[in-house]
């Protein structure tokens, strides 16, 4: 409980009367001081009663519009104050900002005032979180003020809600063909034969030579004849994810670029293969060559390492010119900094130089097309049956076509996951008719790939954008008819 200015003024009046009493040596002013003291104590006690009654009745809720938001995306927070019946206490409720959050509005705009007699009030304010993580909004600060304006009390009330802030990532990921979404999990494939495995396939009659361990006794009892259960064969086919992360893949809004979608799909494939303990490898291809080479393996660390590589993947650069916002993950920037450090003689340069020497991002540079070169190297290195999951865009159909043809040699299979550039370009859907024409061209190319032996080609992109293009086309056709 804190006295307000008014309480201090009344106390000051009492002090003046006491001073007059002492200075004049008269008892009379002390009676006045006693009267003012009685007035103050009455106000203080009545405030205590009113504060307690208010605290029992008031309900304060802090409600975020979303419990999950992306970094730097604005979300609205509603602060609502309600009491079951009016009391004489005035409430000022302020929602403090959580540490790390940012809001453009002033504290006054995050404050709700409930005057004596009023029963409910609310305010809404925007909040952004620059850093990902889980945030708990602090409890709102409630300030009670009594009806005479003598004392205030500050306390924390209300349940603090939590908000999970995630980095921007692709949403509504569509994998399909000609606008139709496929439902199979990424990375699953048909072995094409039956045999020993875990997934039941069918029950058939027992024939001499079948292992007795495979007899299905329940089916035998039910059908009164010996039956055996067949399982889907499990193979040790190697899967290689090949991710294109050239500069051309850096198209789209932050967190939703073509590379982000490719990464999301690649992570999905990794999880699926991880669940079946299948051999998995990763090749990443930059503008000038191969940037990562993780040959297929089944060790648990392999899947973790692949996921880590995928998470850290950023677009390479087409030029070697340095820019102000260079990042060490980019080869040109790392090279430039290494050269600068080499010119220096300081201890700082001597300490850092070895680290930069290890930042050569390319495993191997190719004179010809990087994607083609990467596939060639993959086939040279790996023996046996290989499934290649290729994630790239449609900007250079010829290079994709040649790389896919090469990848299917030696009876290998390829799944091509193509990202149509038209779905990611800023303003790409500005003219839906043109967008449809470009999508149709893409679809022709996808079908051409899909017709190649041992190749399955799919489109990958934001489902809502594909739907927008196809819906606009359907509506245009209906209008024309």
């Amino acid at each position, binding site marked *: 409980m804190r006295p307000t200015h008014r309480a201090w003024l009344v106390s000051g009046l009492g002090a003046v009367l006491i001073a007059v009493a002492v200075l004049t040596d008269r*008892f009379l002013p002390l009676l006045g001081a006693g009267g003012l003291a009685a007035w103050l104590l009455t106000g*203080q006690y009545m405030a205590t009663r009113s504060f307690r009654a208010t605290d029992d009745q008031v309900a304060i809720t802090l409600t975020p519009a979303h419990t999950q938001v992306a970094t730097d995306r604005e979300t609205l927070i509603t602060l609502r104050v309600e009491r079951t019946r009016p009391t004489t206490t005035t409430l000022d409720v302020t929602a403090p900002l959580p540490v790390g959050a940012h809001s453009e509005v002033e504290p006054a705009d995050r404050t709700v005032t409930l005057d004596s007699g009023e029963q409910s009030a609310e305010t809404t304010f925007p909040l952004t979180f620059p850093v990902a993580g889980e945030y708990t909004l602090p409890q709102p600060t409630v300030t009670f003020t009594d009806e005479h304006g003598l004392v205030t009390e500050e306390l924390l009330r209300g349940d603090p809600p939590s908000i999970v802030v995630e980095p921007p990532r692709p949403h509504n990921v569509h994998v399909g063909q000609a606008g139709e979404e496929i439902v199979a999990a990424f990375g699953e494939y048909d072995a094409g034969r039956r045999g020993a495995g875990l997934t039941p396939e069918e029950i058939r009659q027992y024939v001499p030579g079948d292992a007795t361990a495979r007899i299905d006794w329940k089916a035998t009892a039910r059908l009164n004849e010996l039956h055996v259960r067949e399982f889907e064969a499990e193979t040790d086919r190697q899967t290689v994810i090949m991710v294109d992360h050239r500069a051309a893949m850096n198209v789209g809004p932050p967190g939703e670029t073509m590379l982000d979608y490719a990464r999301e799909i690649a992570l999905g494939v990794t999880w699926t293969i991880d669940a079946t303990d299948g051999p998995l490898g990763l090749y990443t291809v930059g503008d000038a060559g191969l940037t990562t080479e993780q040959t297929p393996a089944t060790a648990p660390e392999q899947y973790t390492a692949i996921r880590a590589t995928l998470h850290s993947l950023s677009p390479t650069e087409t030029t070697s010119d340095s820019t102000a916002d260079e990042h060490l993950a980019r080869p040109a920037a790392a090279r430039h900094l290494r050269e600068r450090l080499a010119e220096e003689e300081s201890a700082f340069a001597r300490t850092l130089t070895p680290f930069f020497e290890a930042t050569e991002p390319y495993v191997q540079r190719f004179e010809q097309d990087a994607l083609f070169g990467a596939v060639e190297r993959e086939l040279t290195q790996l023996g046996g049956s290989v499934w290649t999951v290729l994630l790239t865009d449609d900007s250079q159909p010829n290079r994709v076509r040649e790389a896919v043809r090469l990848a299917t040699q030696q009876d290998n299979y390829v799944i091509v996951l193509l990202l149509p550039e038209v779905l990611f370009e800023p303003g790409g859907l500005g003219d839906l008719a043109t967008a449809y024409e470009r999508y149709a061209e893409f679809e022709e190319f996808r079908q051409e790939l899909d017709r190649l032996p041992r190749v399955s080609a799919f489109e990958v992109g934001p489902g809502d954008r594909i739907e927008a293009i196809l819906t606009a086309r359907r509506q245009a056709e209906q209008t024309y008819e």
Partner: protein
Amino acid sequence: MSNDTQLRAMAGATAEDYFLSRQRLTPLDVIAIVATLVVFTAVSGPMGGLAGLAIVGVRYVTDELVAVAVGQIVLLGVLPTPTLLPLLLTEAALLLFLVSGFWETRHRTATITLCTLWLVALGLVLVGLQAWLNTIWQIASVFVVVVLLIAYTIHRYERVMLGLVTETDGEGDA
């Protein structure tokens, strides 16, 4: 806290409301004004009447608490050698001003009754101190300590009622 909120915290309402409330006369204000004019005139003649007018003027310009404080100082001139009856009458008139401040509260009867009880209690404390102690400054010192102790007790009671005090709470939240 915004300026407006601070002002409201000071006055319990907006500045305009507060100013208007000072000018608005409650029935208890009217009784206090009439009683002051009559009693002061009765105990001290025309000079007393003028003193009463001054107190009423102060009440009009400021508020009832300042009027009480000014009235107590004016009483020093009006009653140079106070006897019991005039003292009781003039103090009663001034105390009417004091309780009139609670006329428009939500729990008027309870508040005015409580204020009256505090007045009687603190009056008895002062009279007791006067009988016990010799000098005014001693009486004033002890009285201030008593009032501060009572105020602190109410403060602690309020914090306990609102659940702001725990067993592990330190001493620094007074």
